[in-house]
């Protein structure tokens, strides 16, 4: 958080909207710009479309109501996960970004909550993500919502930093079904 950031006035009421494919032309360029600012290596357009085309409804954007400028975005996916244990319907928060001048106003928290709520509505069993060990604000945000660190991942990022895997169970383990269940039918 910079000094400059604190001085920025937050628009009184941000507009939060759910993404859909029809909005691609209007918003994808700003989504990409916002997210790639925090990345050392850019994602190709394909990565964005991988998420947005398949799980557009799990993407939320925060916009300035007057200028329609993009201030924040969260990008997710939700699918059946199968590895060592019984399958679960696992949500994954892939990208979260808020413009540096608008941080510390709870925008990221609101975006993440909207995404989790959408996942709950789709019968998700759990939500996971990775975050850089040095990204204390991100870790605090998720831990305040109820996530726990489940493991540490050594040198997970290209810059050599390690990560934590954060996990949130939305149900007791025995109640997890591993698919969308009645939501589809």
């Amino acid at each position, binding site marked *: 958080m910079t000094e400059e950031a604190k001085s920025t006035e937050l628009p009184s009421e941000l507009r939060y909207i759910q993404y859909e494919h029809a909005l691609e032309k209007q918003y994808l360029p700003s989504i990409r710009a*916002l997210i790639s600012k925090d990345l050392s290596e850019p994602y*190709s357009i394909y*990565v964005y479309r*991988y998420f947005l085309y398949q799980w557009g409804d799990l993407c939320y954007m925060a916009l300035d109501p007057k200028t329609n*400028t993009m201030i924040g975005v969260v990008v997710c996916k939700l699918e059946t996960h199968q590895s060592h244990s019984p399958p679960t319907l696992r949500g994954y928060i892939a990208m979260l970004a808020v413009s*540096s001048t608008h941080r510390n106003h709870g925008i990221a928290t609101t975006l993440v909550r909207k995404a989790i709520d959408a996942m709950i509505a789709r019968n998700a069993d759990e939500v996971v993500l990775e975050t850089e060990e040095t990204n204390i604000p991100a870790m605090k945000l998720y831990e305040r*919502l109820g996530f*726990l660190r489940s493991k*540490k991942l050594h040198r997970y990022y290209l810059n050599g930093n390690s990560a934590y895997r954060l996990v949130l169970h939305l149900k007791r383990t025995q109640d997890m079904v591993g698919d969308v269940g009645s939501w589809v039918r």
Partner: protein
Amino acid sequence: MHSDGVSVLSQQVAGLGIDDGPNKPSAFGAYEQEPPSAPKLQSKGVIAMDITEQFTNAAQKLDVGQLIKDPDFTLFESVGALEIMDPKMDSGFLEPGETMEDDYDFSQALLPEEIIGIIDQLLCHEMAWHMGYPLSQTIFTSLYIDRLLMPTPTSLEQTYFDKGGSCSVDEPLTLQVLRAYCLGLIKTCWFVNNRVRSEHYYEEEDFVTHTYNRSLLDRLDHEQILKLLEETIELLSGSDKMLPEVKSALSCRLRFRAKFLRTVEMAPSRTTPGLKAVWNELLDFLPELKLSSKLGKPVPKSFSVKVQRKLASTVPPRPIAQVSQEAAFDHLERLCRDASVVVEVLEYHDSHSLFTFVMLFQARKPQPSVYVRTLLQHYLFGDMIILGTMSIRQIIDEDLASTVLPANKLLDRGNDDIEVPTDPRFNMASRMELFRSRAAGTYLDILRTICQNRCRIRRTLCHTISDWDNLQLDAEEIDQDLRQFTKEEPIVDRAISSEPIYAFPLSSWAYFYKLRQMEWIVQMGFELEIYQPDELPTMYWYLQYLAKTRARHLERIRACLMRNVSASRSRIRTTQGGDEYTTALAFNNFSTLEAAATYGFADALSSLFAVLARLSLLPVLPRPYSDAATRYDVRMKPFLSISLPEPIPPAELEELVAQPRESPLALLSFAAESVAAAKRAFEILAKLGPAEAFCQGYHEGWAQNVRESLKACIFAGVSIAAVKRAVEATGGKGQIRLRVDIPKAGERYHDWWVVPKVVPLA
């Protein structure tokens, strides 16, 4: 990063526009009219045909952004996708006026000081590679190295930098020094790379062995290179054209390189005596290297980020790794020191000491580097011969004897010679062989696991404890089966149980190791900062629960050992049998004491944190999306599938941890007693000799570990007393005037013991 605001962003957005009109230039616009002809494929059964038109037609039926995806095409693969003409993704993209290759004159003479500068920069790159950066961002960015490796030389004659002139006569001495050094460097990397690659490690996470299709001089023999280094040292000593200190700095670098190359060539040998001395001799070069480094003059132009474009890699050039000279020397120094210690593992004492050695060596801070860790793995397991001299059976049998089966007929080698199927000894031999084949891999996996990076150790243990759970169950069957041949007499003691008690030696052994690993999982959780402050009461409670379970299990093993004294009397009378018995009892005593120190300290911290939580002195998070039960499932996941010890249900666990019926003062008194008991146990441990503490070969490191635990324990006593005083001061009324700081890993006396710092507030 932080300075750009929305205005900068909007400019960037403009560059990312998505066009969807049909006016886009055709796919092969760059080729003017005709697309290039189809590649000529020479493969049986493959007929190449041009599908450009079909593809273009099909693509035009899609919306912009519409995705046609194979269900098996994963996120991982999509992240690998590249965008052509994006400078950050397209390795062939050139800025206007930029050239593909560097324009560097290899025939130019260099000052001797510049040679020092280049050599020292190469050492920074070499150490950066050891730290985990790829060759492409380190050593391979040197234009001289590139010149040596491309095209691949098959003889020393092909390694001259100046490929023009009639090389051998024309080569200036300075360039010969640099060339000899570079050849030695690359060959050193070849040995290191081969070592790392043959062991268990994680590519990119631990180390990058990728050579981008370049050969690290596999076709040149290291003896040839050593000879060139020696000749160059000789030639240099006869030169009178340099300042003496510069000459000696260059000579030192050449001798250092020759020594390093010889060392990594010898290091994998498990039978060469004096390896420790070899590493120490390498270390002896460091003071002079450091001191003369200031004579060097950097030649930044001889390194280029662009070399990466010529490498077999899909990623565009990444920045050159920056590791300072000081950090490079530090890393090299640690590498030599760690390597000189790790060779001591080859001197085998007993199986428990071996485990202690590996566990504590790996816990050194900072953790020994990947090369040293792979050397350790090689010493331990190379060619399936433990430490180069022992069979896997030898080490397992010794471990069984010193834990549960001292002087026992089940481990009698003579049983193997019996060929009569009805003979009990024949059957014991075959059942034990069955058990060994079942247990060997799982047992050795513990050692292999603790050779990994700290994060991986914990992650892997979380998975492998279920193997131990299964092994314990299988061993139970073998134990029962064996009874018909051993004619084991059970302990019948109505005071303990109405059922007869059998020893179950094999499953007891498996249970012991399973409990140890469960404790390590929790302890490494503290070290890796997995737990949030308000989880600490529960996690220390769980640690004491595991350690107490181990202590009780050791008590049971001990009872069976004592019981067996009469049954094995004749064996115990032999010298070997007697020694085995003494060792097993000594190990039982030692592990019991160690468990007591652990559960005492863990009990104390659990109670202390429970009080702090009750007094609202630990941060409480709102956590709208989880509750105690769902968090319990996440936290206890590795343990929930384990049959023994049984998981404790969440509500019960919460009550056991919080102890709501006890007053804060009662809990603090209990914490004070527990911590005092733990302190006594650590003090006794600190006085044990190498044999009694089962840390032969690593006693110094072990003793330091105990001292650090003891310090943490004393500090905990101080914190408990401070909280107690503050609680007493309020007389149960009003707000407690305290601030609680939870020290981070690295800032504690011992990373496994999170002792809060309690500061009274005015």
